[in-house]
């Protein structure tokens, strides 16, 4: 059973941007796409640990600021010829609030 935690209002997260939630499992990046979809990934690029929350968000992807790995927001998978995967977390928006589950 998912244990939803309210972490932010949707408007706290910039459009085509991200905010960080500190947690016991490490920093989690909450992304908001241009189309107002919300995703949550461990804030750690599978390549060399770059902070994905600081990358440029385009479509449903984010480009890691360290070496330009492009990571899919929905599955955490490195795109193109790169390989690697970062952990995803269930996240949803209800009444304008972003809810995250660490379960």
């Amino acid at each position: 059973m998912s244990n939803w935690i309210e972490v932010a209002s949707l408007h706290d997260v910039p459009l085509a941007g991200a905010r960080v939630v500190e947690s016991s499992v490490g920093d989690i990046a909450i992304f908001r796409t241009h189309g107002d979809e919300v995703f949550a990934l461990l804030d750690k690029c599978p390549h060399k640990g770059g902070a994905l929350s600081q990358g440029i968000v385009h479509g449903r992807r984010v480009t890691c600021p360290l070496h330009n790995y492009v990571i899919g927001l929905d599955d955490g998978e490195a795109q193109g010829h790169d390989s690697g995967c970062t952990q995803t977390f269930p996240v949803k928006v209800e009444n304008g609030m972003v809810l995250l589950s660490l379960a």
Partner: protein
Amino acid sequence: MSRLKLVVIGNGMAGMRALEELLKLAPERYDVTVFGAEPYGNYNRIMLSPVLAGEKTVEEIMINDLDWYRDNNITLHAGSEHEVVEIDRVKRDVVTRDGLRVPYDRLLLATGSDPLIIPFPGVDLDGVITFRDIADVDRMLAATRELKHAVVIGGGLLGLEAANGLFKQGMQVSVVQNVPILMNRQLDEPSAVLLRKSLEERGIRFYMPVNTKEIVGNDEGRVSAIRFEDGEEVPADIIVMAVGIKPNIRLAKASGLQCERGILVNDTMQTFDPRIYAVGECVQHRNEIFGLVAPLFEQAKVCANHLAEYGISRYAGSVTSTKLKVSGIDLFSAGDFIGDEDTEEIVFQDPHRGVYKKVVLKNNIIQGAVMYGDTLDGSWYFQLMKDQTDVSDIREKLLFGQAHLGDSGHDGASAVANLPDTAEICGCNGVCKGTIVNAITEQKLFTLEDVRGATKASASCGSCTALVEQLLATTMGGEYTPTSGEKSICKCTDYNHETVRRSIRDAQLKSFRAVSQYLEFREPDGCHVCRPAINYYLLSQWPGEYQDDAQSRFVNERMHANIQKDNTYSVIPRIWGGVTTPAELRAIAEAAEKYEVPTVKITGGQRIDLLGIRKENLPKIWKDLSDAGFVSGHAYGKALRTVKTCVGSEWCRFGTQDSTGLGIKLEKMTWGSWTPAKVKIAVSGCPRNCAEATIKDFGVVAVDSGWELYVAGNGGMKVRVSEFLTKVETEDEVMEYAGAFMQLYREEGRHNERTAPWIERVGLHYIKEQIVDDDKNRTELCERFLLSQQYAQVDPWAERANQQQTPAEFVPVKQLA
């Protein structure tokens, strides 16, 4: 949307390249059926020469094997029994020889070309063959095992490759043609003479110019010799006819499609029947027909774009260059290398070394080039030709090559072929030569983009791009032709930087979305390449009006600090002209202690770097520094970095002018401006040049009578010494030139292109025209620069440090226990 039916006639390079491009863009749009005359998958026809020469196997030149068709749900009918014999344009289906009918919504003709056959008496004899496909190569290889004498008719590219291959397989080879110059479509007389000499030294014989009278046969109906008009006979067990190709238009013609020499197509590769497209050697576009691979690929891309219903790209013809795939022979030619009464030529000849280079110029713009023996700079001339660069200022060194210009990105290209496989090519991503070469051969990569995708080489800072391109060239031999089209900004669009910029200006586009909609980007959101570029173009076009988009900025420019490998940041306050005070140093020291900065480092730009600062501490340390009078040093941005100075006449016994004073003035004028790439300035107080002003984007060197101005230098992995722009008398003039230069660069440089490659692209002559010769233009440029500076000179640190609350981007939105 239900899937449409696409039928492709022709399983060669152009047709399959178009399909590959289409699958990338719209994999679900079509059910695809392919008809091919040869009983194979798709192979790299231009590599038949190395197969004939025994340097490659047929397996090695396969591009797509049968699995590829199956994996992509493509129905392939390969073999002559399935040849399409009729197109019913009313019912919209095609009919094959064995009676199969396949309907289409869109049809792509890629029927290629046929070898030309001159109808000499005896041409039908056994042993007269052409050089076009795998079957021809098999026939030739069979001959080499049993027979001795080969005659090749035609001394063009294909003929010489055939001759070389047969010779390497052990035959005695003679080349026969009726004109005096070998490869006369690609070479002029001196280079052709060198080529002939080199091939003769290997043992190939030439009969030229001669007129062939007939092909002589023996009793068994097999060829035995070739006889010329003058009665001379040369023995021949096989004769290879390689005199040219003609577009294969039989089917198109029979179907009533308009044809002249080839199938007529428009700029979107459509025939007169808009449902029917055509690409490759079978087409005639703007009165040109095609025989080289680079234009075919460009056509394929445009065609795929339309089939995918993007409808934004056009084919406007190609500029091509050629190399000969004969190992050990270096030959390059491009454009109009013969010239006419309006052109001039620069020639370099060293017969002893077997080197010949000629560049044809018209009004100081390269029209064409032909090179033999040393072709290292071929791609450079080709680029200058495509960019229409005015070369007046480099004429005297032009033929000695790019390396003699103190270039910005040609590092060691000549040496790359000699490097061991373990040599690291891409220092950013740790990719070595062997990895790249293997990827090129095993994954059949053709372009720089392919290599970037497959290996990551050249995908980060891009400084090894020239090396990777060189590797492509050496690995693929003559097959590699650098793209002759203008490079697009990124994969989201086919438009280049200039078109995007023009559209922003002319169509008054004022947001990324407006640009991506207006130009129909494939990705409405863009990507990490185009978003920052377009954000910059918008900012420079609409100063004071366009709102900078933080989410389109690379992290460093968004956070106003440099991200480090552990996700901490470095902070560099501005130290005007490199001059500081004990009070300032004390403030930096206190801030460093207070925030427990792990590393304090003096930079090369005469400043102090505080490294290892956590994100949430950035606004706090900025506040302390700001209170002490510091502003951001913009060490993180595509912006004015430092103005380096020496102490100058104030203290130095050699100093002729106040270099620190001028340096500070220049920095006060230029700080805060956003530029296409980083900009560094320096001012030296005398010609000893202690501030290293001649390796800066804009350098000033004091002399007794005034100031010398230099542009387009840089340090970095390949040092490039700047070029002399002009000399002025007063500090005010230096300021105006600096402002004008900054603005011209801001308006015309491509995003991520430093001043050195920019000036190599447009030519120093152009810069001089704009800001030295034209006083009015210089004044206006400087005025525009100062106008944009009114909006740019806001200290981003103070802005963020002095807010009541820490700005959101620096702190977590939530801390869970």
